[in-house]
């Protein structure tokens, strides 16, 4: 097998893995701060996609401001969802699970009724192909990869160096202790949920021109996000990035040797292996 084919397969896997890492980071951020798993997370990805569709494809705004608008809009939506729905469910995992499932169906059905069931095409934001030897990547996917990497870096710097980011880490470690230190738990919870949803919205906005948008578009990315979090470790940013790259490798190489149908199986086999051998994930805290 030519080496270019292997490199192409790896590149295929990595290119979009970083976008799914964004979705995973949003999910893990929400879990870390509110201790709930938001099963409607994929619908915030979908809302980011539709925000991009309307702003970019319908109203003709330039793509970069459109992406910013999608991030802010979905973030605000997350803020509203936290305030109205999830605030009182903090720490109540089962209740939050059921409520988030209900929110998933409400948002998806609302999208079907509002936007229709058929795929809606979003024009390409960047055109052209990059070739290096026998390796090919579209300019569009390359920009998406860079943008996702950039957002991950911004999130990391925010959490590490900003006052609010440190407060978020404190709440994630010990909410009571953080409260005793003067951290406003309610504000941090709302902000954490908003940023988590904004990350999903960013992913939806980045992939809308690549894949088109549809009401059910959030289902697959959230499944991948769960795989990434389980493999990488819940609550760990470096774990999520590594989990995403591992998933990308498995999918890219797996498709080459075993075909598309086997790729889904490989992802879940990886999850089972990690849960058996290291249940907290590669970088998770015990």
């Amino acid at each position, binding site marked *: 097998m*030519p080496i270019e*084919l292997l490199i*192409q*397969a790896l590149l*295929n*896997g990595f*290119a*979009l893995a970083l976008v799914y890492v964004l979705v995973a980071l949003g999910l893990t951020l929400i879990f870390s701060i509110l201790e709930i798993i938001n099963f409607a997370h994929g619908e915030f990805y979908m809302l980011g996609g539709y925000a991009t569709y309307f702003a970019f494809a319908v109203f003709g705004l330039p793509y970069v401001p459109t992406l910013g608008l999608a991030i802010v809009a979905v973030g605000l939506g997350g803020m509203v969802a936290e305030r109205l729905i999830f605030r009182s469910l903090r720490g109540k995992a089962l209740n939050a699970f059921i409520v988030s499932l209900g929110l998933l169906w409400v948002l998806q059905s609302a999208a*079907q009724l509002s936007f229709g*069931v*058929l*795929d809606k*095409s979003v024009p*390409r934001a960047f055109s052209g*192909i990059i*070739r290096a030897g026998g390796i*090919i990547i*579209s300019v*569009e*996917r390359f920009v998406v990869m860079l943008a996702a990497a950039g957002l991950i870096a911004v999130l990391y710097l925010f959490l590490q160096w900003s006052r609010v980011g440190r407060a978020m880490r404190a709440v994630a470690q010990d909410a009571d202790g953080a409260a005793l230190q003067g951290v406003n738990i309610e504000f941090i919870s709302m902000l954490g949920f908003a940023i988590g949803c904004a990350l999903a919205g960013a992913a939806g906005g980045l*992939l809308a021109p*690549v*894949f*088109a948008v*549809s*009401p*059910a*578009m959030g*289902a*697959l990315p959230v499944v991948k996000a769960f795989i990434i979090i389980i493999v990488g470790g819940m609550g760990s940013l470096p774990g999520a990035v590594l989990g995403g790259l591992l998933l990308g490798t498995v*999918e*890219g190489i*797996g*498709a*080459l040797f075993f*075909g*598309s*149908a086997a*790729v*889904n199986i490989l992802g879940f086999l990886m999850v089972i292996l990690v849960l058996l051998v290291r249940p907290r994930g590669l970088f998770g805290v015990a």
Partner: protein
Amino acid sequence: MKAQRCRGWGLMLAVALLLGTAGPAPAAEKLLEIGVLGPLSGGAASYGVELVRGAEMRADEINKAGGLKVGADVYKIKLITYDHKASAADAATAANKLVFQDKVKFIIGNAVGATCNAVQTVTEPQKIMFAFVCWGTKNLGQDKPYSFRSMLSQWEAAEPFYRWIKEKRPTIKKVAIISPNDTSGLDTNTAVVKAAKGLGFDVVAEETYERGTKDFYPILTKMLAKKPDMLDVAAAPPGEAGLIVKQAVELGFKGAKGWTAGSNPATLVSIAGVEAAEGVWSPVNINVKSDFVDAKVRKFGEEYEKRYKEVAGVIAVANYGAFDVFTKAMQEAGSIETEKVLAALTSRPYETVWGRLLIGGKETYGIDRQFLYPMVISEVRGGKNVDLEQVLPGALKALKK
């Protein structure tokens, strides 16, 4: 006493007036409920939407004309629609609801082969007449006498399509095929591979994918490494076919593009983009504005576009035609009892929206339950679907002579 007499006369007058103005008792308007199933959400939603619209148009026409006259009765048609999301389990649930809860005797419209298998476990034992566009080979057979396919399938289309490719583009030798990983997709791949190999093509790649997949780079990298001259997106629904074509071109594919199951090129073009979609051939879709189709198809297309603000695809026409054939059979039988309607449905030609239509397919399925009508091979040029040549399935060739 005088007051009582007046009341008595008044009452008799009222009764006389009532009797005088009442004409012969009107025939009670009966309701004929007909089920429509389909994937109304998810990757295959375009199939379901067209099925419902085709049924709606014919039902509304019949109702506006005063209803369906069957024997001495006149029926108003009411559609009952369920979304099965292309899932066999949901399709079985929906079929159970239609048959046992809603008590329908006719289901006109369904797509996705695996869901048809599931529905038939309910409809056949209950003798429910069932028309669909599903492409599963086993969806028709002697063990399923109440099931009909209203759209040409891969078994009718693949051989004439690949024969046409061999004649018109003899430089195409190597073919790569991709379809969804379910009954329709696997059966389509089987039919296409058989047709292609039978005509001397080298099938260098035959792949499947899970419905709902968006990223085809991994599987396309593997397929395109075999350097095919043509990529056939076979049984992919319009949205996914558009993504496959778009991503194949991004990966540097410059060969010919075919779509054996192509049902709505307009959607493929909108997803793939004009440049990537250029040159896609499809044999089973219908350009409702073309001179290659019957005038009735063009009229249907105009009405469809006026009503739904979109161009009609072949599935809408097929389900409209199925509705037409079934209701005509009910009228011939003089009954809506399915055993009598089935007996009235014969292999003789029907005049439908397609023009002349035959119910055949015995040589492939062992029973005549496949609607046969002329197919038109088309090509996408500059974002528009251009008809190239009309081709007749085998049985229709004999009829035309």
